[in-house]
């Protein structure tokens, strides 16, 4: 240790570099966390703009604005950008900022790799976005990229695949880094079963990422060789099988959707106790529920494929396995409510978004349970019902918790309290409009409207119009969010270290001053 200390005396290395080089070369977990979050926010608006193109076209029957091919590009790119550009980077941003502070570590375990994984993400994101301007247009076969259709993509196919490789490498690096940090850098005394739930969810998410991203990379590489090197993995004429791709894809895809939701469980388990002024109910069962959800996620993939023509034994197995997921998920919801029970609750904006999350995510869970029933899924599958389902779990589910987490930690990051009044306006606008946007889509799907169509029969007009109105309201409400964040960065009421009343008991990050200094926990804290 003494050698390091003396080196410090010679050149002061405690503050960030100046200018652009600070961001290009930084290895500081807070800087990298900030960059991840800013990237995610930008992509959230880019993907959101694409969603508005979709909702504008679907505002009324007939084609008004875009041709069907471009419409398909929009649905495809909206999904890819929201998943790989907005949600996953937002979680990586939270992890970078908060995991070291929550476990009392000075930084991430692998700080240089941390920098590399962020800049690879940017490279992958830019490459993916650039396919919009290529001959033949951006990928338009849906984010699942099912062959043979995806093989009809124009010049953009190899670029889209390479961008997925880059994004995959970036995610795997981030995951390895977070797992290594959690295993090796916890402050003395912080056993695994003492870690904050958010850290637990990221530990499991990290393992899921490491397990499935290579599978996805393999699947898209097989598409690449089918298209350019005359293999026929997915072509029946050459002895392959188009459905094989779907099995591989969803073996990745189902754990992937849990990658998109598990960290939000961690956020909810972090936020509810603070605002209920009570410890989390059932910490142990929360951890066990998480682990069982993660394990189950590997054996339910074919519920995305009930209609491809599986043998009856397969249909039944995947139906039962999927229904089982409801048990640990239910345990989590019950535990959150038990945490609220007999608390002394206050409803600052992070708590408001979290309460909305518990209700609306559970509604998405209910429709998920309905979808698990294979014979009923024969009706729901590929209709607007499924669109409603996964948007309920991903928007008022995942996105709401990302927003809640942002409000929750924004004072810690910026040192300023955000505008609470305006944030409440943001909450009510978002919560009302998100339901206007997605609830009618249940009806559309049940009445028989397929997903991924740019135009529809006139009996679907009313609910599509309501949905589009909700979409535009929801989209523009998010500008309030952007304004609040910028305002808090630029100034405002000084935040205390604790920020939220009594928060010190709920997490190490609240024992630090606000804004958190550039380097924190250089000496590990004492854990009681």
């Amino acid at each position, binding site marked *: 240790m003494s050698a390091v200390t003396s080196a410090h005396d010679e050149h002061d290395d405690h503050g960030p570099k100046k200018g652009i080089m600070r961001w290009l070369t930084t290895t500081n977990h807070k800087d990298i966390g900030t960059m991840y979050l800013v990237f995610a926010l930008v992509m959230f608006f880019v993907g959101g703009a694409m969603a508005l193109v979709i909702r504008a076209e679907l505002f009324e029957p007939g*084609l008004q604005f875009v041709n069907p*091919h471009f419409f398909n590009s929009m649905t495809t790119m909206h999904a890819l950008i929201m998943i790989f550009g907005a949600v996953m980077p937002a979680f990586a941003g939270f992890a970078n900022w908060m995991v070291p502070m929550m476990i009392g570590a000075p930084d991430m375990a692998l700080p240089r790799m941390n920098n590399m994984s962020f800049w690879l993400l940017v490279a992958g994101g830019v490459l993916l976005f650039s396919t919009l301007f290529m001959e033949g247009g951006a990928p338009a076969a849906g984010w699942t990229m099912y062959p043979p259709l995806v093989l009809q993509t124009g010049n953009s196919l190899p670029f889209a695949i390479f961008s997925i490789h880059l994004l995959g490498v970036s995610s795997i690096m981030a995951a390895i880094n977070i797992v290594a940090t959690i295993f090796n850098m916890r402050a003395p005394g912080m056993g695994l079963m003492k870690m904050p739930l958010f850290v637990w969810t990221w530990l499991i998410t990290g393992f899921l990422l490491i397990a499935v991203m290579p599978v996805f990379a393999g699947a898209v590489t097989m598409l690449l060789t089918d298209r350019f090197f005359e293999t026929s993995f997915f072509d029946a004429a050459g002895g392959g099988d188009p459905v094989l791709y779907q099995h591989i894809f969803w073996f990745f895809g189902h754990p992937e959707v849990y990658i998109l939701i598990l960290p939000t469980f961690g956020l909810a388990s972090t936020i509810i106790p603070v605002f209920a002024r*009570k410890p989390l109910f059932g910490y142990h069962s929360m951890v066990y529920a998480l682990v069982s959800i993660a394990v189950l996620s590997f054996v339910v993939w074919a519920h995305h494929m009930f209609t491809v023509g599986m043998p009856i034994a397969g249909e039944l197995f995947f139906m039962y396995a999927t229904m089982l997921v409801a048990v640990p998920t*239910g345990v989590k919801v019950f535990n959150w409510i038990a945490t609220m029970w007999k608390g002394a609750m206050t409803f600052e904006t992070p708590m408001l978004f979290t309460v909305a999350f518990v209700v609306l995510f559970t509604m998405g869970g209910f429709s998920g349970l309905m979808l698990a029933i294979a014979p009923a899924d024969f*009706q729901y599958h590929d209709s607007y019902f499924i669109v409603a389902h996964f948007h309920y779990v991903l928007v008022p589910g995942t996105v709401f918790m990302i927003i809640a987490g942002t409000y929750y930690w924004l004072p810690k990051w910026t040192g300023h309290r955000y505008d609470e009044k305006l944030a409440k306006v943001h909450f009510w606008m978002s919560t009302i409009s998100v339901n206007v946007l997605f609830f009618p889509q249940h009806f559309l799907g049940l009445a028989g409207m397929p997903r991924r169509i740019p135009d529809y029969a006139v009996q679907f*007009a009313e609910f599509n119009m309501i949905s589009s109105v909700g979409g535009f309201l929801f989209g523009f409400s998010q500008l309030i969010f952007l304004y609040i964040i910028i305002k808090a960065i630029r100034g405002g009421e000084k935040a205390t270290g604790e920020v939220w009343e009594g928060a010190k008991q709920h997490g190490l990050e609240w024992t630090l001053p606000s804004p958190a200094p550039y380097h924190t926990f250089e000496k590990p804290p004492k854990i009681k």
Partner: protein
Amino acid sequence: MAGRYFGKLMIKIMLGDSSVKKTKQIFAHLFLMLLGLGEANAEYALNMPKGVTRISNDVYDLHMLILWICVAIGILVFGVMFYSIYYHRKSVGHQAVQFHDNAKVELLWTIIPTIILVVMAIPATKTMMEMDDVSEPDMTIKITGWQWKWEYDYLDSGVHFFSSLDAESNQARQLGSGVDAADIENYLLNVDNPLVIPVNKKIRLLLTASDVLHAWWVPEFGWKKDNVPGFINDAWVSVEKPGIYRGQCAELCGKDHGYMPIVVIAKEQAEYEQWLEEKKTQALAAASSADREWSQAELIAKGSEVYQANCASCHMADGQGVPGTFPALAGSSVVTGPLDGEVSIVLNGRAMMPSFGAMLNASDLAAVISFTRNGLSNKVGDSVQPLIIKPLLAAMAQPEEDDDW
């Protein structure tokens, strides 16, 4: 984008555009709907149709069962939560009680949901097994998905035809067509040749595809199933009520995925047999039309129809194609080059282009080839007779000889 959209909408409103009138009508509808004053049999539907088969009724019952179970759980769970939110607030002076574990309730809310799931799984399994049982059908129809039409093959009677979006919807659906969708009957849900089946017969459906994945879905029948190229899936249907049932392709299959509807007409046995005879006569007439000499004007006129129905979705109505995806035919070196070359590509297909020799009859093929050479701003001047195409089609139908390998 959004700005542009609302800008356009405002301009439309100021100009009194007809589509805005439609928008106003829909808003009026919405308003009535919210007040619960809409006509009893309003066009929109809120729920899954019960359908017209035993299976579809079973599926509907399952759907309602799970829905009500979820609603009950939801009311209970959210009820408890909102009670807590109301009474356990700091602002009403509630003091937090610092408990954080209770093994008994945790066990309870693990076991009760498991029991509910088992209760749900029993009827679901029964329906699933019933759906899966395709044994002992009365007749079999093979359904092949193409980009973007359906092919129906009555395996027992040899009747065979293609079914694509009707011409009226097809015109109205074009970007900037200026036609109000509400003026078209069954907009996007109507076809030129519907599938006709007899009622109360167990009909086995074999599903496959020729190019990419499709999925055949008629909500009134209670299921959908994927059409996978190179593989055959099976399903069955037994319709209990004569009527017209409409559906759509449910698996993304490219740019015109939204434009390949399904129409099934269920008829009493006698009417069905009459229809079958008509179809057979039509097929004979179409075959014999290839045996006579056609005038060039006749070929081009017929070819124009065939082109709009079969070619325009990719090569565009004016033959300009889509840069980077679908080549232009206007001025194309293939179309303006030697006749043999074009005939060969149209019959056998190339890359994304399907083999139209498998889809169209000799007269239609001759007509459409003649049209492309003398329409779409091409002026080659020659044409081809159905009599020339007929032997080529016959040769295609011959099985390939083993030594070709």
